[in-house]
């Protein structure tokens, strides 16, 4: 027991020394997870199913952004207005690609099953199929090697928090994700479209009787979730590069985040994402990096067993 106490004591010292460094990185990761988690949660809200192909929507966004950067960034790293322009273009391309991929998945892998009123197992299998098809096709067309994005900005330290540097990259993630979350909150909470989404999520039958076009609402939900996932893929690729299977691990983490916050709950997805990102980063102080994923899955299982509705509770209709 004594040695365990010693272990904790030394590691808490390390934690104290490195806390803010790890915290900043954790927030950046967490915001990315949150953007992907929102996509899961939206689709879950209206369809009651986990979109296993969401990882490939993420990947599509990553590649779309990569091609924009490849075309726009020259030999020297752009600065100032050019940087902003290129990033905005990249985001637009990635969002469009994500939305397009999501629509494709919905039309091909889900809609025929919905028409046939297939059992839930069929949706899961079809989604896994869509995911496998898309990422392996990307592997065939774009090669199986990871390639880094050309840098559209200088990644210097913008300011520091308690000595921990906040880089340009962290700032971009923060700004973009906060804008998107606010826009989404407004879209779902305040617009007619959002009312449609919420009503379908709450009670599809009644919504349909009240004149909500269910097919259209579902399609739009996929577009919105897909756009966010695509942008997240772009931001992830900026720092890590793109490869055909880039979506798998982040999507799994994002799913964990969505469950953690309460699947079907938009704000819950954001909270869950941030929490997971930060906890994951901080736990490298205590365990070998090799076991980070064990921690993430451990959290998932615990949450599902103890509080399956997540931290903020389920249901898009009720809470958003």
């Amino acid at each position, binding site marked *: 027991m004594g040695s365990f106490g010693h272990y904790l004591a030394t590691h808490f010292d390390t934690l104290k020394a490195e806390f803010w460094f790890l915290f900043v990185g954790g927030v950046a990761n967490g915001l990315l997870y949150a953007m992907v988690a929102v996509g899961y949660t939206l689709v879950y809200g209206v369809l009651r199913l986990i979109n296993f192909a969401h990882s490939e929507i993420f990947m599509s966004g990553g590649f779309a952004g990569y091609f924009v950067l490849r075309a726009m960034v020259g030999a020297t790293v752009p600065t100032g207005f050019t940087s902003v322009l290129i990033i905005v273009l990249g985001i637009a391309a990635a969002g469009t690609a994500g939305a397009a991929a999501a629509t494709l998945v919905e039309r091909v892998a889900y809609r025929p099953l919905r028409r046939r009123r297939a059992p839930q197992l069929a949706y899961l299998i079809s989604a896994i199929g869509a995911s*496998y098809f898309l990422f392996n096709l990307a592997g065939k067309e774009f090669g199986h090697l990871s390639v880094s994005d050309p840098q559209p900005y200088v990644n210097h330290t913008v300011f520091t928090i308690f000595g921990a540097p906040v880089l340009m990259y962290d700032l971009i993630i923060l700004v973009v994700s906060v804008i998107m979350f606010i826009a989404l909150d407004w879209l779902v909470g305040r617009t007619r479209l959002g009312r449609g989404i919420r009503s379908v999520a709450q009670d599809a039958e009644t919504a349909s009787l009240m004149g909500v076009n269910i097919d259209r609402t579902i399609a739009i939900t996929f577009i919105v979730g897909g756009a966010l996932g695509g942008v997240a893929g772009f931001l992830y690729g900026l720092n890590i590069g793109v490869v055909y299977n880039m979506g798998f691990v982040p999507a799994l983490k994002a799913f964990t985040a969505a469950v953690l916050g309460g699947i079907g709950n938009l704000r819950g997805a954001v909270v869950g994402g941030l929490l997971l990102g930060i906890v994951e980063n901080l736990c490298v102080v205590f365990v070998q990096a090799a076991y980070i994923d064990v921690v993430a899955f451990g959290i998932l299982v615990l949450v599902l067993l103890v509080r399956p509705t997540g931290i903020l509770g389920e249901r898009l209709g009720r809470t958003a």
Partner: protein
Amino acid sequence: MIRSFLERAPIRRLLVIVGVVAVIELITGPPGSNQYPTSGFTGSYAEAASFFGLFRTQRWVVFLALALVAWGIVELWTRYGATIRSRSSSALAGPRQVSEKRPVRVGFALALLVLGILLPHIVNNAFWQSALVTYVAIYVLLAIGLNVVVGFAGLLDLGYVAFYAIGAYTTAWVTGALPTPPPFGHALDAFWAIPFAVVFVVIAGVLLGAPTLRLRGDYLAIVTLGFGEIITIFANNLYGITGGSTGTQQIPHPVFHVGPIKYSWGLAPVPYYYLALGSVVLFLVIFSLLQRSRVGRAWTAIREDEVAAESLGINPLKFKVMAFAVGAASAGFAGVITASADNFLFPSSFTLTFSINILVLVILGGMGSISGVVVGAIIIQVIQAYLNHTPPSGYQQPDLYIYVGALLITMMIFRPAGLIPSRQRRREISLYEESHEGHPDEVLLGDDV
């Protein structure tokens, strides 16, 4: 005007077929690379190809011609399909009735068994003899096990590979090939791994199942997936216990030694084939007996309607855990055979992709249909072995999963019950779909609300 033209049924079908063919063109075309990301696309459409030797031109022309032919067939089928179907089914009614008689089915199964026994001597070729074990027999064993979980009980298990890994690691442990000392202090023959492996996978199945099987289907899929990953992470990192990422390369070949009978397995693949075949037959018998027993009926009831099953006094959790444990047993067996045939073990072999591959075998053949799963597994694995060994031009091994993905979607859309559906399952699906007509809520919600 244009819109109304495009919305006519034959035109719509043509457009869909052209779209599908364009995608097929892409996935069969040459690969691209990250340096030249468009080369795969341009090559897929612009490269030269021939149309059954009739004319030789660019691929897109050839495939357009194929699309038109396919469209013609589809149009003919929509016009005459119903009559052809009813005629063929009435013509087949007699043979089908005969085929459903028990002695006929048993006879057929015995004939297949004899074929299975003779097979390694029919394919007298080193690659295929080895492939019969590594690509086919082991996978059949795994597929019939996963079929119990997914097909019989309707639980989507994405971490099935973990049980296979446990079986393989148990073999290494029992034979003294791991850093962990073997049971009772001295190394045993690989055959002794079988009881240990079965006990361990059943325990693992219960430990994993008992808490998680209360969860909804989609959650269960993710949690089992996580379980599979965690097992691999531990196997890869616990150097002192599992040998870590280097695994082990010292698993001995099994020796069967009871009384005067002694037989040693070696490097040759055929004896392992018989070992695997024997296990397949054993599990086929066990699983089909189970399917027809009270347990099998309970599984069916739970799969169809858990609430109703519960009200009939069936404890769903108990039977779900049982399905998990029973299904895991054959994976444990497969792990023992693979480990002792290969002599080595690497944690990197036990991946999620592996679990998905097994799932594909189950789905193709028909979830819940034992004969279907066996046939599905054989078909896919033979194709895979062939493609791996003699790849056509432009094909790379990872491309297989493009086809697998497309196959999964297509099966779910057109033939959810599989190639050879179990009769019961076919009835269920059609009943399910009929009963759920016209309720928009349930249209969306699937079966869990």
